[in-house]
């Protein structure tokens, strides 16, 4: 008996994620991107353990705007702060917040979308109106206002505020997919076989949209990193004194910095680009893999 169940488990076919990952490895560009992402994540999280954030953000008026040197690998900013240290911690923060926002908005969006799509009718109608409304909001302004207004502001509140205006895309996508799937005969068949709505949603429909979810979440991660650095760039991102890639770029709004002190902003710009491109490469490769699987299945 034991042995038999073990055998069944063993023969269990690979999960969506496994299949996608396997396809991903075949795609060279995506593979390089994935490795880059893993390395950079390990690097920034590892190094930042040894960096003292308080020290880095302390203003040192005797060392302002210094070009790269042995002491400061990437020079200093107008407050004499070490750019390299800010870059490391900033990247770590950007990745962390991007991930957090993606998870929060993803979970909410998926739940919203599946419920709306699966139940359809009036429920769907009502829920879609909510999405429509959120979609037309000038979300950047509203996030900025909330960021400014929130009394006890920290990284987590920031993530929640961002997520609150970023869940609609995935909700809409999942909803339309759920709407299609539940009309397919296999979902109808499940009803006639006595399965409950709950079980049909989770056991029948969801497995068919997991690859879509994985792909969308990955692409959302890139997008969220972009939005976060954008908000920080405008000065409404992380709480003050928390280094961010966007903040480094914001220094470039000073013409002097833009023209003559490349070390302050160019590395941050390049890093954001690389991060977003890599995440996107991985996401697109996953999408292609998912599409290919769709064709076969």
């Amino acid at each position, binding site marked *: 008996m034991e042995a038999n169940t073990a055998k069944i488990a063993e023969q269990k076919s690979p999960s969506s994620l496994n299949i996608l990952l396997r396809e991903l490895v075949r795609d060279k560009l995506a593979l390089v991107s994935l490795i880059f992402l893993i390395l950079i994540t390990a690097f920034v999280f590892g190094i930042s353990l040894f960096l003292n954030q308080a020290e880095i953000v302390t203003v040192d008026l005797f060392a302002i705007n210094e070009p790269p040197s042995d002491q400061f690998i990437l020079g200093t900013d107008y407050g004499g702060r070490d750019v390299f240290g800010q870059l490391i911690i900033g990247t770590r923060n950007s990745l962390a917040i991007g991930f957090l926002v993606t998870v929060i908005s993803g979970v909410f969006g998926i739940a919203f979308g599946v419920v709306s799509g699966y139940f359809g009718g009036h429920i769907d109608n009502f829920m879609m109106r909510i999405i429509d409304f959120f979609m037309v909001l*000038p979300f950047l302004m509203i996030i900025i*206002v909330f960021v400014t207004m929130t009394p006890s502001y920290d990284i987590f509140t920031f993530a929640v505020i961002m997520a609150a205006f970023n869940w609609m895309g995935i909700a809409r996508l999942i909803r339309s997919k759920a709407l299609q799937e539940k009309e397919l005969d296999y979902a109808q068949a499940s009803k006639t076989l006595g399965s409950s709505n709950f079980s049909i949603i989770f056991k029948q429909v969801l497995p068919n949209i997991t690859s879509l979810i994985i792909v969308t979440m990955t692409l959302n991660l890139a997008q969220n990193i972009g939005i976060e650095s954008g908000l920080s760039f405008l000065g409404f991102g992380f709480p003050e004194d928390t280094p961010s890639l966007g903040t480094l770029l914001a220094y470039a709004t000073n013409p002097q910095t833009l023209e003559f002190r490349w070390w302050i902003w160019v590395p941050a710009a390049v890093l954001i*680009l690389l991060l977003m491109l890599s995440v996107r490469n991985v996401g697109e490769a996953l999408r292609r893999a998912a599409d290919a699987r769709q064709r076969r299945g």
Partner: protein
Amino acid sequence: MWKFIVRRLLITFPQIVFLSVLVFIMAQLMPGDALTGLIDPTITQEALEIQRERLGLNNPWYIQYADWVTGLVQGDLGQSYRFKTDVTAVISERLNNTVLLSVVALVFTYLIAIPLGLISGRYNDSPLDSAITGYTYLGFATPIFIFALVILWIFGYQLGWFPTSGSVAPGMQPGTMEYYLSKLNHSLLPGISIALISVVGTVQYLRSEIVDTKQKDFIITARAKGASENRVYNRHIFRNSVLPIAAFFGWEITSLITGTVFVERIFGYPGMGLLFLESIGQRDFSVVTALTLLFGIASILGALLSDIILGMVDPRIRIK
């Protein structure tokens, strides 16, 4: 068609109401009220209280809301504490600039996106298509503020082809030809920055739409009629794919607004986006509220317009 428009309008109305409620709540959350910016700081507490009572600031929230909406409808957006004048006046000064910037951005978006999309779609998987797709790929991953900074750096500072800040050269006489040319000149670089990023979505849409339409059965019908490839593309594929694009600009408004905020900041371009950032920095909340509301209404109306245009170009929607 009329039914469709009316029904679409009926959805728009609650949207605007919800928006106003949201903005009103935001305004209530903001510190200070209508009096904060106006009053002489030496005034006594009692006098302040009388003023508050007179302005209805002690009323329950729904009456305040009603008063606020009534004001809005009459064009009263409150007082700016920073400029000591009507918010309406403050905004209208900046409105022209932002509208000019948006129009420039939209025009360039279409000018660039449509040819690129058509080429990319028709000759898909050719080297030219790969180049275009490569660009959209990069464009999608590039945040607009990085892109705009680089553009400013190259064309503004290194090459010096365009002015690097402001909306008009100093000392120009309003009303003269030079004045308008200077305005246009100032809006070009920020406008193109927005356009070069916002083309990405349109190009991708067009390309996938064309590649998709290519494989439709009715294209085979057209070929079977003996239509040449050019005719098949011009009459059947492009027409069907480009028409919906005419409706896109409305939906683009939300992202356009986002774009202008960044670009106005980077180019020091005095439009509504920059005004928003300045006002929130200076805690001039009546302006912030008014701008949020205006941007929101613009987005809602944009979406409405797009839906209606799409309904007009696609008979399948129109009939329903």
